[in-house]
């Protein structure tokens, strides 16, 4: 019984990781940059959600929809703005310079949140209607079910979008070779900007489901899930959309199982050891594409 419950715990944790990892992997796969500020965009989204949810006098349906829409809009605008100001000027700079800038953006968002909202965590009420499934001793919360379902739907939509639309094709082309894509008449800049918009939109969804599951947000709430999701994305093969999903779920389950049956103290060490071993055996993660170096 316990085992099944622990498995479900892992699954619900993993689906959150997977959802955040999708945003990471999307941006990495196309723009080839690690957007370290992704976790912090999620944090900002959660704050926006909590403010919008305070809007009184809405019908029951609108009281859910309004905060969700505001949050999505805010995250997308924020993501695109960050991209315009901080990342676009560095389009041709070394990837490391962009990485450091992303870290700077991450610090920036954290300190702005700290200045505006203070250091205490803030309670955010779940926008997901309360329901849960219980089977004997096993509980499955509504938030967990919703997260899992939403993550799967998003994964499928993203995969379809990238593989079967014209814009998706442009994105793949940019990811393959920026210069050649430009020669083919693809606007590299706007394609990358669009990628960021989508990535930030995913961050908004992640932030809605994250705060609905855990109920609180603070200025540094985005950092840890951000790192874990980054690990998940790499585990699954960074750049690969099904990989992010798989990596997230596996990471969640490993973490849960390690805590349940080995040691809570060393759970993080175990998670990272598994990651290292997997990468040693399969250097590009579970579903990552192998890059062949030509001489």
């Amino acid at each position, binding site marked *: 019984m316990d085992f099944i419950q622990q498995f479900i*715990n892992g699954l619900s944790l993993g689906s959150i990781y997977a959802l955040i990892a999708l945003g990471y992997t999307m941006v990495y796969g196309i723009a080839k940059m690690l957007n370290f500020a992704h976790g912090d965009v999620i944090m900002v989204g959660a704050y926006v959600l909590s403010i919008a949810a305070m809007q009184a006098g809405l019908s029951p349906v609108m009281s859910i929809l309004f905060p969700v829409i505001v949050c999505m809009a805010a995250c997308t605008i924020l993501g695109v703005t960050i991209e315009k100001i901080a990342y676009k000027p560095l389009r041709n700079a070394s990837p490391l310079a962009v990485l450091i800038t992303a870290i700077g953006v991450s610090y920036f968002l954290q300190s702005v949140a700290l200045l505006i909202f203070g250091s205490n*965590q803030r309670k955010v009420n779940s926008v997901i209607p309360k329901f849960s499934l219980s089977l004997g001793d096993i509980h499955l919360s509504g938030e967990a079910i919703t997260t899992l379902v939403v993550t799967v739907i998003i994964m499928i939509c993203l995969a379809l979008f990238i593989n079967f639309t014209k814009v998706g094709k442009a994105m793949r082309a940019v990811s393959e070779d920026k210069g050649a894509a430009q020669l083919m008449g693809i606007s590299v800049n706007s394609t990358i900007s669009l990628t960021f918009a989508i990535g930030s939109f995913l961050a908004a969804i992640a932030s809605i489901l994250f705060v609905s599951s855990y*109920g609180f947000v603070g200025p540094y709430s985005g*950092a840890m*899930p951000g790192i874990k999701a980054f690990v998940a994305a790499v585990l699954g093969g960074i750049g690969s959309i099904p990989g992010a999903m798989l990596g997230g779920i596996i990471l969640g389950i490993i973490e849960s199982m390690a*805590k349940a049956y080995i040691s*809570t103290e060393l759970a993080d060490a175990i998670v990272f050891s598994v990651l290292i071993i997997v990468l040693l055996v399969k250097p590009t993660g579970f579903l990552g594409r192998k890059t062949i170096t030509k001489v």
Partner: protein
Amino acid sequence: MLKRFLALAVAGTMALTMVGCGGSGEGGDAAAEGGSDVIKIGGIGPLTGDAASYGVSTKNGAEIAVEEINAAGGVEGMQLELLFEDDECDEQKSVNAYSTLMDQGINVLVGSVTSACSIAVSGESQKDGILQITPSGSAKECTATPNAFRICFTDPLQGQVMAQYITEQGLSKAAVIYNNGDEYSKGIHDAFVEKFAELGGQVVADESFTTGDVDFKTQLTKIKGSGADCLFLPFYYTEVAYVSEQAASLGLGLPMFGCDGWDGVIKQLNGDTTNIEGGTFLTPFVPTDSDEKIQAFVKAYNEKFGADPDQFAADGYDAIYAVKLAVEQTGGDLSNEALIDAMTKITLNGLTGNMTFDENGEPDKTAKVAVIENGAYTAKS
């Protein structure tokens, strides 16, 4: 060749000017030592970073105390001035902050707010011999140096008192969750486990987590299957809020006990205490206490900062009053030796209880037990 040399020379001079530029401006040490009419109190604590809420609360509480004292005419004809520096909960930065404060000529140090930082700073402050009062550094070693005192309880003491209390409630199978990455939590946990076993109880589940974790379902599921009859949660209210909500969603339903870090949990939960109803914790300070002094403090804090004060704020407030009493004891003598000597002679009638200090820097005060009932803390005698 010449270019290389130039570059290196630039590097060198830059390094030097950076080091040197601080030197020219702030040679203010001497000024404060003489008979000035201001007592400079230095404060150190995390104002940014993960632990920011502790430092901010302490700073706010201390500010209120300073304003009160100054409005009432100061101490021995001198006004107090609080200089509070951020240490981000990093030991190196804490020592940096201490040096900055020494440059500004502080007379007394209130800090650091967290244990490890406090210990790192006391290594330096010992050399200067300055009086150091840590409001909330609860590790044993915080008062190891002769110049260091503390306002709060030590970690082991809290663990022992709670073990005693839980046993008295007729509960004998405890499940414990603690923060493995936090000394405070681990210190209470270790003492609790030892004492609880000594009293004939049994710790049936001993689980941990790390700072930054928000998912406790795994630990709670394990506890659910362990046959425990109570849950001891020695960590701060932020995580307590997560645990209480997740415990409810798993249908755990065990009575919960905690430590003084719980203070603030009701605000954290926006006043909705359904999931933590009956939770009992040890605290030196309850904001709903009917005590006149506490009510005045809560009112002033609410007016100034728009929130209820927590235990850190009360500790900060008391630390400033301890300084005031010490200065009164010496009759206005601000020398380090006199102040340190005076600390053991004062009786502080503070927000966190009546206390005296022994030579080891430990406060002698009684613990109160608070229960969360109907969305409010109730003091229990």
